[in-house]
């Protein structure tokens, strides 16, 4: 049984906590968050040691195998570093850190500590993405020439269904590291690297500041891989009214024999899919089998799968599929994109 601590109980941390409860090989023994409300809310899931300061959790971590870190971007570096120095394996939300220097430092820490670190690149674990990758790797579309990867959503601006003010750190580049490009572009860049299996450089970058905020609300970046010159068009934005359960995210891979699109792999009718998956989980429940948490949403299940993969790596001494180096590479591309951007902030 793996003993786990959770640092940060915001939306993501709470979901990781709930997902852990569905894993037979994992026991959450401690949680930490400065918010009393968040700590109190977490107690509905079970009993564990509760800390307002994550450092106290780390000071008392002798019985822990790993920590899950879901804190604001600017705290990633410090919390990840101290967790590794405390001898813990780490699962951290993306980005690994907010700049290349911090990321390189973490890469070194992982190597020196001998511990495992995995970053929450959840989109790699979405069913449709896994199927597309398998199809691509079997050569179904010939050789990959270009990829279009896009996600346009509401960003940190809350959904009216659950109205809360935007957390200040999101719009402060010193704390977030950037806007839509850092937030969701990070994932799209990682997917491009995931599909191509190659490193990439930025050939074009244009950021949008129409929202007149200190961070960009949109970005278009064109990438090219170093070996095969595969081109990738990354299009991300925080400017669209998102309505759950719809999710404006798609990947199209163009090969010289055919193409693959997430549209083909996502459920045609998301409501029917939810009912079908819900019923399956109901049957699993009454027959005593394990659930597939969040499978009814068709993309949130990826959060469960990534965490399960991390714990599997710990149990079987495997290298996590998303390493600190993957986090570093994504941040390098983002930094390059910011430098190259020819956008001017509008008045």
């Amino acid at each position, binding site marked *: 049984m793996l003993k786990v601590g959770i640092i940060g109980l915001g939306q993501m941390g709470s979901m990781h906590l709930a997902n852990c409860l569905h894993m037979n090989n994992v026991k959450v023994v401690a949680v930490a968050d400065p918010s009393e409300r968040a700590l109190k809310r977490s107690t509905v899931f079970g009993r564990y040691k509760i800390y307002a300061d994550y450092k106290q959790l780390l000071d008392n971590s002798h019985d822990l195998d790993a920590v899950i870190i879901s804190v604001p971007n600017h705290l990633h570096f410090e919390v990840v570093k101290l967790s590794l120095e405390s001898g813990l394996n780490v699962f951290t939300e993306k980005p690994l850190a907010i700049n290349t220097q911090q990321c390189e430092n973490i890469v070194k820490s992982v190597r020196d500590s001998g511990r495992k670190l995995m970053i929450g690149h959840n989109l790699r674990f979405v069913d449709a993405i896994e199927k597309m990758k398998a199809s691509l790797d079997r050569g179904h579309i010939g050789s990959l020439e270009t990829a279009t990867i896009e996600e346009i959503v509401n960003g940190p601006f809350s959904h009216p269904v659950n109205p809360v003010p935007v957390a200040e750190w999101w719009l402060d580049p010193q704390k977030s590291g950037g806007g839509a490009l850092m937030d969701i572009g990070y994932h799209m860049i990682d997917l491009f690297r995931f599909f191509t299996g190659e490193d990439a450089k930025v050939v074009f970058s244009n950021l949008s500041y129409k929202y007149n905020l200190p961070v960009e609300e949109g970005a278009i970046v064109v990438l090219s891989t170093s070996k095969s010159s595969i081109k990738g068009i990354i299009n991300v934005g925080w400017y669209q009214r998102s309505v759950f359960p719809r999710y404006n995210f798609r990947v199209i891979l163009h090969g010289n024999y055919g193409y693959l699109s997430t549209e083909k792999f996502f459920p045609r009718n998301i409501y029917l899919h939810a009912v079908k998956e819900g019923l399956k989980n109901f049957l699993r*429940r009454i027959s005593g089998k394990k659930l597939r948490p*969040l499978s009814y949403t068709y993309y949130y299940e990826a959060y*469960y799968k990534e965490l399960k993969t991390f714990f599997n790596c710990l149990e079987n001494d495997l290298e996590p599929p998303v390493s600190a180096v993957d986090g570093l590479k994504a941040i390098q591309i983002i930094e390059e994109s910011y430098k190259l951007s020819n956008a001017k902030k509008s008045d």
Partner: protein
Amino acid sequence: MLKKVIKMRNEVSLVKADWDGKNIKEYVFSALNLIGFKPQGSVNSVAIKPNLCYYWNAATGYTTDPIVVSGIIDYLRENFGSDVNIKIVEADASAMQTKYAFPILGYTKLAKEKKVELLDLSEDAIEEREVEVNGRKIPFRVPGTLLKSDLFINVPKMKIMRATHITCALKNVFGCIALPRKVIYHPFLEEAIVGINKILKPHLNLVDGLVALGRFPIRLGLIMAGEDPFSIDWVAAQIMGYNPSKIKFLKLAVKERLGNPEDIVILGEELETFRKDFPKENIIVSKVKMSLQFSLLKAYKTIVGDVIPPTLENA
């Protein structure tokens, strides 16, 4: 502050404008001239309240287009002089902070261009008031600026809303409440809307219907003006395809003597000009659909023990 002249009839003007705000000044002037808007006394300070409920801009039909406010500013400058003190005001809401909404929605730029002030009503000097509506006493935190300005101009957006069917002039006044977490009023929203309108009475209401919101946004090209917010809402409800006498907060407003539908006179374009194009939403079906989704999700969570996505945790 100007005294409101009690009129025997409440004129509502309907003007067909370019949806993209071209020549907006002309349309705003025309809408105001039709109702014969002429404030009595001197005007030195003006508060203009657009609807900035979210960060989605006017093209989505959610928020007031700054170009409409710019037309009003032009009107004020031409009629009351260039030194009249104008403030564009909005209060923080549960999901919206004015410090972000003003720049995102183009109001910071407008304020700079037109040399007017922006004011977050949540940070204004507050007066605590209480009113009784339908036998319920409701406390409000009322921004002093709105009570003290010589002119209070309400500039709502015309749109549908699940909770109240429509949202226009009276609901935009509800948005003036200084308390950011206005969701606390939602269990008795109709009473709260009527209550705040008993305290805050705009001298003028000018509706941005350039892009309105029904089942989807529609480029309606409508500018509507009137001195009485109740009359505006009564007409707006009809344009949006609803029977206003069936809308709870309007029924309550009649009961509480906030307005009288019999006094309403429509001037300018025919109401049908706009109604025929408006994409009416069947609110009952929409509400049932939404509530069914959440009820099923909650029941599923309870029975199966599955995880709920973070965005829906507090839904």
